[in-house]
């Protein structure tokens, strides 16, 4: 699934930020709320307990509160909170980071005066647009990018901002629009659902914005704000900073917001924006409803029929979908409203060597299965699913680890001490005590060498 991947990546990004930057982020209640939602459930609970409690929490109280068997979850939660600098620990007590506490409190009680949830326009828009129009707009913009990536000839080329983002993110290579080619990462990107695709691009946008001297905090504030806006409502540009106004231009190109013209004083978020932070979306429904909402043509999300004899029939005339299918299916014939093809060892191997995983293929087929297929349980023929997995296993016949092989220990004791140390460091890749040999990873080797020197010199 692509959703957890997004989770980890936005989380990783946030955890990588230095404390002062994070604290600046927490000034916005909308951001506090969005970040809160990214946390594991246990961490959320700890925050809630401390939120309205003026006294700091005793660390030992937590131990008594969590079941004995679930201590790892408790540590995981605390680790996460520390990583995001959400808690302060001193002398056995834990308290919430002050800014975050105030921000989240404001988000929950509605005491926010930063307008972090966006200011709706209070005047009537003369050129008012409806939700259907916004969906179409988002759809067109987004598909334009995807079509460009698969090389469909639509006669239109996305704006330079989009092109440089695609290049910067490594999804495409090439200097001019005419010679840009999709990369392996680009293929994987195409197989994700829309929400994950947007986040992939937005994270790249974040990385790029730092190079462009844009303030990451403002960029994030804006992104998290977009996620909390209302579809169909127009919002005023008044509260936006100059950076955020520049961003608006870029986001318009992705179809995330709609502005009638760039000088307009108002903007509309599209469905791409309002579903940004609704990551879980009740299992498949977020992406499924997204798909159905986004493409008027394919009201019924599924269009692919997969048979037990590995034949694939796809009822689509979208060049984009056909291009995606072509990544792992031998397409044999094409009709007005459908294409037919066969999944074969070669076609899957081609996909696998492009960096697409078996699971991605299977997820894609599951998500896009024709309603007719949904009647059968399991959804996809198990023979085909198993075979695709087997093909992947066949490709992955070995695993390699770079590092150092240790041997010729003088005594069992020496071996045990050093091997134990390697275990503690977590760098042990392979060991065989009766042969007195072990293999450590490249990263851990230096520490082992130092340890051996200390031991030998200390002992001698």
């Amino acid at each position, binding site marked *: 699934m692509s959703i957890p991947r997004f989770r980890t990546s936005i989380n990783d990004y946030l955890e990588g930020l230095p404390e002062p930057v994070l604290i600046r982020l927490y000034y916005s209640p909308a951001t506090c709320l969005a970040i809160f939602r990214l946390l594991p459930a246990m961490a959320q609970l700890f925050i*809630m307990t401390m939120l309205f409690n003026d006294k700091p929490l005793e660390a030992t109280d937590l131990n008594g509160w969590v*079941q004995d068997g679930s201590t790892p979850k408790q540590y995981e939660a605390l680790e996460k909170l520390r990583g995001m600098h959400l808690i302060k620990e001193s002398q056995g007590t834990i308290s919430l980071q002050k800014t975050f506490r105030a921000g989240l409190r404001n*988000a929950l009680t509605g005491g926010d005066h930063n307008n972090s949830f966006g200011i709706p326009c209070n005047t009537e828009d003369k050129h008012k647009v409806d939700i259907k129009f916004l969906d179409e707009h988002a759809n067109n913009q987004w598909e334009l990018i995807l079509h460009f990536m698969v090389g469909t000839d639509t006669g239109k080329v996305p704006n330079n901002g989009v092109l440089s983002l695609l290049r910067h993110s490594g999804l495409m290579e090439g200097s001019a629009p005419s010679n840009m080619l999709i990369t392996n990462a680009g293929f994987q990107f195409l197989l994700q659902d829309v929400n994950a695709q947007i986040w992939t691009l937005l994270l790249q946008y974040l990385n790029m914005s730092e190079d462009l001297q844009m303030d990451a905090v403002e960029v994030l504030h804006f992104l998290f704000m977009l996620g909390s806006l209302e579809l169909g409502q127009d919002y005023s540009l008044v509260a936006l900073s100059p950076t955020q106004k520049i961003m608006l231009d870029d986001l318009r190109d992705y179809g995330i917001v709609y502005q009638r013209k760039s000088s307009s004083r108002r903007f509309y978020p599209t469905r791409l924006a309002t579903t940004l932070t609704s990551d879980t979306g009740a299992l498949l429904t977020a992406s499924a409803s997204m798909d159905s909402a986004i493409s008027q043509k394919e009201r019924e999300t599924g269009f692919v029929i997969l048979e037990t004899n590995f034949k694939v029939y796809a009822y689509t005339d979208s060049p984009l979908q056909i291009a995606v299918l072509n990544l792992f299916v031998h397409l044999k014939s094409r009709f007005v409203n459908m294409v037919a093809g066969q999944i074969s060892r070669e076609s899957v191997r081609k996909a696998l*060597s492009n960096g697409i995983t078996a699971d991605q293929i299977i997820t894609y087929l599951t998500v896009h299965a024709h309603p007719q297929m949904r009647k059968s349980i399991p959804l996809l023929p198990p023979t085909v699913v198993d075979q695709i997995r087997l093909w992947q296993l066949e490709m*992955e016949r070995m695993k390699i680890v770079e590092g150092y092989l240790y041997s010729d220990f003088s005594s069992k004791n020496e071996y045990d001490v050093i091997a134990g140390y390697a275990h503690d460091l977590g760098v042990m890749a392979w060991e065989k005590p009766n042969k007195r040999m072990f293999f450590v990873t490249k990263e851990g080797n230096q520490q082992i060498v130092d340890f051996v020197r200390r031991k030998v010199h200390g002992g001698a």
Partner: protein
Amino acid sequence: MNAVDGSSHVPQVGFASELEQELPSLLVLILDTSPLGWGTQSPPISLHEAVASLLIFINSHLALNHSNEAAVIASHTNCIKYLYPVPGEDYSILAPKSTVTSGTESSEEMIPNGQSNGDNGTPNDASMYRQFRVVNESVMKQLELLLSGTSTSDIEHNGKISDTTLISGALSTSLAYINRLVGGVNDNGPKLRARILVVSVCSDLASQYVPIMNCIFAAQKMKVPIDICKIGNNTVFLQQAADTTGGVYMHLEHPRGMIQYLMTAFLPDRALRKHLVLPTQSSIDFRAACFCHKRIVDIGYVCNICLSIYCQPPADGSCAICDTIFDPKELADLLKKPVVVTTTVPKTKTKKKKKKDSDATPNFTPGP
């Protein structure tokens, strides 16, 4: 070229456990709005303060997960009412640009609603996340309507002010609501985990013994825990409700700190509760109410056919529920007052006689 090497996509760890938690949850909050119940609290907490805490609590619940849902049902003296979602209203379209009329007490800053500055027709929408605002505005507005529409005749019962509340009605409504949302159209398993939280101030619920017990068993069957947040005196049946369904029962010693109780004990959803040590009841009041006078009894009489409970043997000699006619002789024996005796000999005699009688059928055995 790297095709033979599988090290590049080694599966990520710690993955499945997260997915299991991802199931969003539905919280149905039943708020006891009985005027007398709130009026007689000591230490006092006003309905207004409690609602402020509850709204923050609902917001927190919604904040946990984007797909979490909430419903609020008021359990009044003579009716129940959906405070959110109001039947027939569509919340997916834009909220109308008018706010609720400010209540008389809305000077309190804790009220999580833009209403205090929203009197000029343009609410400060930016101050609150949309999902929260929709729920909060709806609850405040409907509550206002409910309370302003309540006249003294509604709360009077047989000439005196009734302090009861229709908890049983609210419970069955919420179970029906949960059933509709959770067990509905979707065939690939439940998409929501539901639970009920009852905020109760009333102590006297004996008149609704049977319907409440039926709701409890229905909830148990649907695997819906009923949490009880109790303000004021303990109520017998609600303890049983929490105990039977695996919910949390908590009696608020300091109702003013309600928000902290809510956040700590009632916020975790079912998936998380497995990992926590939650407050448990040391002693549960398992007493029942009799079917004849709705009195709570320690020891009563039980019909040996249908197990109906009576506080005293029925006057007409037959069970009011299943119409079993009891042996008049047995009934007479049961109604016998203890005989005050001076000597020891007759005492053993009466004992013997009682024992013999109780073996006969149909009889009427004293039960707990």
